């Protein structure tokens, strides 16, 4: 190892890194850390399954002479039941919980934490990285699966559009929530799965109040309103659903930034 002596490159010691720059830098690192062949393959297979099953459902309904309204309902129900209940939360959980949770668990968080940057860009970058990876894996199967399940009858475009909006905003909200979960809990994936199964899956069936506290209810509202389908459960005004999902996303990121500020880093 040579002597550093006089040839130190020019640096501005104590310089702070702005929020936009910090977000971009953290995003660049985190997205490379969360993407793995195993994760993409497993979650891609799940999405492919939804698309194939959607095609089978649409074809069989068509052969059995289902009505257009019935097929629209089937398509929307399928997008809700498989896409919004299973794919969107699970895919979001895997990447979002890993974004900062893995870094915290394996000790690499220190390389982004001990820097002259504020905490909000780190939380925002984690959410952006998660959304970037999750979005295509959530939106494509939910939209294609739901659309194929309608067998392209008149009005099926509305199902596709509703699925797109619901899957996209749902993915963003879940991702932000699970970034926070990754900072709150060790083994956040297990906590997240418990939340998805027990709360989003079961507890919302307990009544209107419980459903108001589930993200799925708001995401499904987007699908139901845009597709003009009555999915049989509580739905809200379209604008209410959008605002709630946006507020959950923003609040999760703020709390994640606060959590980062007070976190004990290994």
């Amino acid at each position, binding site marked *: *190892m*040579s*002597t*550093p*002596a006089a*040839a*130190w*490159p*020019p*640096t*501005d*010691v*104590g*310089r*702070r*890194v702005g929020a936009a*720059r*910090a977000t971009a*830098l*953290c995003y*660049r*690192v985190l997205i*490379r*850390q969360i993407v793995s062949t195993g994760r993409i393959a497993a979650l891609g297979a799940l999405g492919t399954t939804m698309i194939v099953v959607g095609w089978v459902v649409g074809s069989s309904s068509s052969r059995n002479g289902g009505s257009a309204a019935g097929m629209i309902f089937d398509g929307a129900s399928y997008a809700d039941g498989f896409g919004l209940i299973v794919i969107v939360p699970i895919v979001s959980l895997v990447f979002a919980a890993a974004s900062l949770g893995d870094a915290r668990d*394996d*000790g*690499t968080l*220190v*390389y*982004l*934490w*001990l*820097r*002259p*940057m*504020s905490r909000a860009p780190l939380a925002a970058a984690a959410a952006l990285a998660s959304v970037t990876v999750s979005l295509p894996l959530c939106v494509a199967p939910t939209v294609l699966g739901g659309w194929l399940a309608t067998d392209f009858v008149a009005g099926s475009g509305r199902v596709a559009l509703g699925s797109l909006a619901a899957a996209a905003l749902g993915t963003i909200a879940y991702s932000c929530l699970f970034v926070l979960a990754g900072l709150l809990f060790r083994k956040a994936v297990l906590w997240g799965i418990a939340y998805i199964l027990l709360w989003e899956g079961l507890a919302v069936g307990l009544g209107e109040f419980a459903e108001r506290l589930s993200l799925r209810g708001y995401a499904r509202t987007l699908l139901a309103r845009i597709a003009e389908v009555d999915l049989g459960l509580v739905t809200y005004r379209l604008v209410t659903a959008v605002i709630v999902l946006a507020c959950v996303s923003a609040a999760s990121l703020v709390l994640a930034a606060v959590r980062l500020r007070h976190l*004990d*880093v*290994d």
Partner: protein
Amino acid sequence: MVEVHGVSKIFGDVVAVSDVTFAVRPGVTALLGPNGAGKSTLFRMMCGLTSPSRGSVRVLGADARQDRGVRGRIGLSSQQDALFDRLDALDFVQVAAETHGVADPIDAARWALELVELNPDDPRPVSGYSKGMRQRTKLAAALVHNPDVLILDEPLNGLDPLQRRRMIEMLEDLGAQGRCVLVSSHVLEEVALLGSRILVIAQGRLVASGDYRELREMMDDRPHQVSIEADKPRSLAAALVESGTAVGVRVEGGAVVADTLDADRLGREIAPLARRLDARLRTVLPLDDDLESVFRYLVERR
């Protein structure tokens, strides 16, 4: 540059650091202590990675947990072996440079990697690196932004003897430039080689501080062991006890191992004693003059 005042850190029922006070000035300072002594916790508090339960830690006059500017003037090489494993070394160090706001991050990263004798053009991700290479990658990342305070947790782990010697030379150079270089180690000969100020940490407490010589002086009231190779070892052993120079003796393989409370007096009197017995002295060697003995004494005395 670093002030630790009355600091304690408690994790549940475990007191990791207990009422530690010291100040560190520019130059190299070594934190010496066994594994689990609280060295890494002290370093984490200095960097703001965790708050003290009691007391205060100031680095460059501020709390690194609260002050962004100070965080930009600290370089940390943590004990954690984990790196961003999908990045190659140049990317890893470049990210460190960019997140510190270094003006020309690529050049700075190349410079830092060459400084620690790693190839900046090595395309392998750091996951394929040996422990020593990972250690040097972490050091490059800690140095790349020209920090005023360099905190290195067990930086010599995994290095071969040549790399270790060069690293020690580099740390001494950095200290001589007026930087505050804090190095932890549980390996005593490493700290002896650093020739630095030493803070001895044991069971979460600061048990001693000073340079090696000062630590030795603190131990003058303890028995020292001296090995004496000479003709007629049994006669010499008896004479040492009879004269009161040694408080205990044994003969091991033809050499006298003497326990003495006054090593200086033994040094003065051994030659006249040998002459009187007509015994030829071959070697007189202190057995506990190494840092290991100092350390063991300081820790076990508690």
